[in-house]
């Protein structure tokens, strides 16, 4: 079995904590050997304390935006620990005129039950035709901003910059990480 965890002086990388990956199976069914934590190539290590940051996830928060937010924003606060964070966002959008936010939330679902209308993606949650059917989410547009509020609190602002005529809900899933490399 390969050595998997090293706490101490690595033969190539100095003192620190290092964890290498376990064995696995590739998608084609072939075996992938475990990685020796004593290896000189640390690019596939699961943990490497010589890195400047481990980009720990502070929250994945789902925010509902409605037509009432057109041209305005919705925000939430979280613990940012007084250091710089970074974030990225995913989007869920309606796929038919009868759907609303509750139909497209991806948070969780009881085992064995379905919510087929719930999807998320980088450019929204509906994919298929490249048409521009009005008001079914194809016109979604938003930005996210992070600001430091002091005292270890951060604020995330989601600006819904859709047209004033946009009537449908869409959800923004924000992932916030601590901190800059």
């Amino acid at each position, binding site marked *: 079995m390969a050595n998997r965890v090293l*706490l101490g002086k690595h033969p190539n990388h100095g*003192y*620190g*904590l290092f964890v290498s990956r376990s064995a696995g199976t*590739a*998608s084609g069914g072939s075996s992938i050997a475990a990685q020796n934590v004593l290896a000189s190539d640390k690019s596939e290590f699961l*943990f490497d*304390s*010589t*890195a*400047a*940051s*481990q*980009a*720990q*996830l*502070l*929250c*994945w*928060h*789902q925010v509902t935006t409605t037509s009432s937010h057109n041209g305005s924003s919705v925000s*939430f*606060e*979280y*613990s940012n*620990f*007084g*250091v710089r964070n970074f974030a990225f966002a995913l989007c869920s959008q309606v796929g038919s005129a009868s759907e609303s936010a509750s139909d497209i939330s*991806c*948070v*969780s*679902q*009881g*085992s*064995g*039950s*379905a*919510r*087929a209308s*719930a*999807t*998320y*993606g*980088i*450019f*929204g*949650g*509906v*994919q298929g035709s*490249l048409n521009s059917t009005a008001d079914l989410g194809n016109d979604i547009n938003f930005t996210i901003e992070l600001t430091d509020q002091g005292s*270890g*609190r951060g604020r995330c602002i989601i600006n819904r910059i859709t047209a004033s005529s946009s009537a449908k809900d869409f959800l923004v*899933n924000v*992932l916030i990480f*601590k*901190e800059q490399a």
Partner: protein
Amino acid sequence: MANRVYLGRHPALSGNPYGLFVSKPTKNVLGTTHDDFAFRSDLSDSVGSVTSTFGQSFHIKHRGEVSISLTNDGTNSDFRDSVSITYPRADFNDGSNDRCPLVFIQTSVITDTTIQNAVGMYNWKNTSQDFRTSMGFRFVVQPYPDTSGNGLIHVTVFAEAFADADGDWPGTNTGTRKVYYALATTCIST
């Protein structure tokens, strides 16, 4: 040399929390400010408007690749094709509910599987005013599509092409691409 790793009860942090602590290079792990640490296991949101993920790192539960072949569909000259990837919802279950995994997708470029496309699309309008999309892909995650017990990732890959100087459609590179996927156990919270 600075102390870099501490496992146990931290002697200097407020409350002396137990855990694993790793400082940034050149920083002392016995420091007391958040800027000292590259990793600490005692992070928890105290504001209360979000559900804390406690500084969780990504754990890739599934990864793999599938092939996809692009052809002209003969109707709209879309030069795109789709592939669906399934995964077991139970792998992201918290005991009673299935939750949504974080999905990363990349694709190869034509003739070269060592170069991967990141997410992105370019739109290009040809002389007949059709909109066409080149060099890119989209994906959506459908975590609870039915009662089969599987989640679904739907990936659409678009053929690569570049507009030339006079705006003519320059032809499209069809052929086989690879779609690479990784599913992280980091689950959505409210």
